[in-house]
Each structure stands twice: as structure tokens, then as C-alpha cells.
């Protein structure tokens, strides 16, 4: 029977993993994602899953074990955060290149140094170009649903790409909230069995993974990965609609909150969008045409759709929870690029907020909207909540 329980974002993700019952999980714990492998280890110890749970000595080994298991034909999941993610960096492009449909619970935490356990998006943004799909979740419910949906997305024959399911460290991962969960049978039939292409364990049709590809073919194989990400944009909605048909919940690539007639739009990802949406409601009551565009899918970036939402606005602010020191913050860069391609010259304020877990309050969102209304927009990025 479907259930509704008060659980955290991490437990919600772990519960989805139990129901998915992957063949292999290789993980090494790091705050704030530790709960995911911890909870999953309980399921393994209590016989609730059939998973081969591989405990390793580092994140680098964890993701390497995931890659080899996925190449062998297994359905594979894992989780990590922050510097653990950074240690995996070398292997991420290999997973994407091998077309390993790994589903990864990425619990966003600031990259050290200075060492800090709280949320920002500097860890996942460092993996922006690794060839993985990036989904950013607003709450625990979405993290649960996205884990299940991502299995089908990753294993889609025209896609075959690994997927990061991101949620905000502590804010989402450790906060307890009501989450509706499907019954086990529904999840089992939704994800089905993995039907791997070119698995290493198909001994009748042997293949070698990891062979040399020099200047003759490296480029061509990368082009295939580009096509796979174009196919994500093409097929995502049908997978999300399939998920809606079993869950009643639909997650679009872009969460457009009161943007249809909006003059002033704030673009944001993950948990902070809850604050922005609340402020949008307040401003709407005062007659201000405010809106919030939450980017759920960051890779591939749905650029044309983003430009369509923002193109007619009078002013836009983009909120990044990561820096690109010496350049444009990652989400801002994407949004500006999308608008340029669409020929839309919308006044745009880049804002960086929430680094190292700095709180983002409704008053901050209010001030950002007030500046947009006043036309107080600068070329330099602004730092929200910075001591200055």
C-alpha cells in the first residue's frame, strides 16, 4: 500500500533504493549523504534487498566499483557529497563514456577548504561537464520520486547516461517532512529489470571496455554522448509522465511558478526555491507580477525552454549556490547563454547566495525582487547575505 511518513531527504532516497533493489551498491560515507548508505546497509543486513553492497576504502574506489558493476550489466546506485564527490571526479567521465546508467544520490555540500559540512552546490557544479544528467530536487518528496524516475531515465536505450539526483545537504537531507511513498510492487514494476547493452557478463558476445581511442575516434564517441543528452531533453517528459501515471506526481524539467505573466522572475535551484515561491505569493498579493523559475534539470540544460519562460520578463535575477571564481557563476552563465541564443536581451542580475550553508531568508528574496522592480541591476554579480 502507498504510505505517507515523516522522514528525511536521505531516508527518502534510501527508501527508494530499497524499493528499487539495485544489484550493486558501492559506497563510502561522507556527511551529509552518510545516512543513505547507512540506512541502506541496514536493509542489506536485514535481508530487505538482494543487493551486493560493496564497502570500499574511498570514494574513488566506490565509484570505480560502480562503473565496473554497471559495465558488467548490473543496476547500480550510490551516494556521496562534497570532497567525496571531488575524489570521484576522475571516474565520472568514464562512467558517462561507458554509458553506465548509475543513479547517484548527490547530497549537496560545499567543497572544502575551508572545511564546512553545510550546503552549497560547489560539489555537483564541479561535475557539470562530466556527461552526467543533473536533477536538482526541492524537497524530500522530490528526492524520493526522482530516484525512482532516474532509473528509467538513465536506462532509456536512447540515453544510457548516469544521473545525479541532487538534494540540498542538511536543509533537505536531514529535515523531516511528510513523504508519500509508493508500494514496493509498483516501484518494482515501474523500474523493471535492467536490460543492459553490451554487458561484460555476456560471455557469448565478449566486449572490451576501456580500450584506446586516439585522435581517430575519441571525438566521435564524445559526439555520441552529446546526442544522448539531446535525447534526455527529447524523452524526459515521457518518462516523467509514466512516473506520474503510477504516482500522481509529475516533475517537469523546469518548475514554472507563476511565471506565465510575470514581469520579474527569480531563477533558482533546489530548496531555496521554496523561499522564493513564498515571496512570489506575497508580492502577487500586493499586485507585483513576480514569478519563480526553478531549474530542476541542469544537465542537459533545457536552454530553449528557459529562454521561452524568461524572454518576455522585464527583469530576471539568477541565484547561484556556487561560484565560478574569476568567471560567471554556473547557472547564470547558462541562463545568459540561453537568452543570447534566443535573441532576448533581458536585464539580468547574477546573485550568489548560500555558500557554505549561509541562510537564505525571505527578506533576501524580497530585496532581490525590489531591485529588479527598481531596475537596480549591475553587470557584477551580487553576494546575498554576505557580511559587507
Amino acid at each position, binding site marked *: 500500500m502507498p504510505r505517507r511518513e515523516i522522514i528525511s531527504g536521505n531516508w527518502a532516497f534510501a527508501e527508494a533504493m530499497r524499493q528499487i533493489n539495485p544489484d550493486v551498491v558501492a559506497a563510502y560515507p561522507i556527511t551529509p549523504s552518510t545516512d543513505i548508505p547507512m540506512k541502506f546497509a541496514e536493509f542489506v543486513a536485514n535481508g530487505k534487498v538482494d543487493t551486493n553492497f560493496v564497502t570500499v576504502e574511498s570514494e574513488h574506489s566506490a565509484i570505480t566499483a560502480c562503473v565496473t558493476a554497471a559495465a558488467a550489466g548490473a543496476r547500480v546506485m550510490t551516494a556521496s557529497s562534497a570532497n567525496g564527490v571531488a575524489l570521484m571526479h576522475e571516474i565520472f567521465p568514464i562512467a558517462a563514456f561507458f*554509458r553506465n546508467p548509475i543513479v547517484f544520490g548527490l547530497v549537496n555540500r560545499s567543497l572544502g577548504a575551508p572545511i564546512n559540512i553545510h550546503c552549497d552546490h560547489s560539489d555537483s557544479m564541479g561535475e557539470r561537464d562530466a556527461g552526467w544528467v543533473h536533477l536538482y530536487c526541492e524537497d524530500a518528496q522530490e528526492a524520493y520520486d526522482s530516484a525512482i524516475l532516474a532509473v528509467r531515465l538513465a536506462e532509456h536505450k536512447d540515453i544510457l547516461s548516469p544521473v545525479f539526483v541532487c538534494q540540498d545537504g542538511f536543509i533537505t537531507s536531514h529535515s523531516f517532512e511528510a513523504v508519500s511513498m509508493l508500494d514496493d510492487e509498483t516501484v518494482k514494476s515501474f523500474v523493471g529489470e535492467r536490460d543492459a547493452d553490451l554487458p561484460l557478463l555476456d560471455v557469448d558476445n*565478449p566486449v*572490451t571496455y576501456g*580500450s584506446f581511442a586516439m585522435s581517430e575516434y575519441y571525438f566521435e564517441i564524445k559526439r*555520441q554522448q552529446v546526442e544522448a543528452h539531446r535525447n534526455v531533453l527529447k524523452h524526459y517528459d515521457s518518462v516523467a509522465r509514466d512516473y506520474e501515471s503510477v504516482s500522481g506526481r509529475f516533475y517537469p524539467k523546469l518548475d514554472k511558478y507563476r511565471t506565465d505573466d510575470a514581469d520579474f522572475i527569480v531563477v533558482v535551484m533546489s530548496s531555496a526555491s521554496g523561499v522564493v515561491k513564498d515571496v512570489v505569493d506575497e508580492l502577487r498579493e500586493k499586485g507585483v507580477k513576480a514569478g519563480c523559475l526553478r531549474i530542476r534539470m541542469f544537465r542537459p540544460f533545457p536552454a530553449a525552454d528557459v529562454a521561452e519562460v524568461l524572454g518576455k520578463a522585464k527583469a530576471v535575477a539568477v541565484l547561484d549556490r556556487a561560484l565560478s571564481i574569476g568567471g560567471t557563476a554556473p547557472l547564470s552563465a547558462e541562463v545568459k547563454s540561453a537568452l543570447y541564443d534566443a535573441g532576448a536581451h533581458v536585464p539580468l542580475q547574477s546573485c550568489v547566495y548560500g555558500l557554505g550553508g549561509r541562510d537564505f531568508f525571505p527578506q533576501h528574496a524580497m530585496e532581490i525582487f525590489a531591485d529588479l522592480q527598481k531596475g537596480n541591476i549591475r553587470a557584477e554579480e551580487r553576494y546575498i547575505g554576505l557580511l559587507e
Partner: protein
Amino acid sequence: MKKEMNSAEMARPKKWQDVPMAGVAFGASAEAVETGQWRSIRPVWDSEKCISCLLCWNQCPDRAILTDENGKVSGIDLFFCKGCGICAHVCPKDAIEMKPEADFPSDSGSR
């Protein structure tokens, strides 16, 4: 179940779409690759001196030492031999001598 090998998968791809996904190499495809082109020195085998101890066969990294139906050394497969010289080095009877490829201008040694 063994699938039929698609000849396009084995041939030189002309378009990015035709390159095998994930850059995989299909089973036994290395047998079609002429690594003998890399060779700068060539093993020359002397059947008179050879006692078929199979040290060379055992140590050859390219499976280039040929044997007959009785398991005796019968020659060297120059299509694969990269000319590393291990066979000549391990031979207890000096039955294999490494000679410069320049000594064989008209004969690549390949099939």
C-alpha cells in the same frame, strides 16, 4: 546467445554514429589488427637449433609464436609480432635472432 557480428561494427567507421557505443571493442577484434607494423627488429627463427622448449611461446606477449598440431614451435606470426625481442632473450639455444627490419626491404612478413 551469440549475436551475428555486424560487419559495420568491425569495419572502419565513416561517421560518428557508426563508432561502437562506449568505445567498446568487440570480442576477438584484436585478431584483425596488424600490430606487426610497429616492429623495428624482427625475430628470425632457426628450426635446426630449436628444441621446442616453448619458453618463447610462454613469454610472448602477443601470442605470436606459432606451433604445429604436435605442440612444437613452427615459426613466428609476423602479423602480430611487435618485435619486443623477449623470445630471443629467453631462448636457451639461441635459436631466435633479432634482425633489423631494414634487412627485409621487400618483405613485411605479414599475411
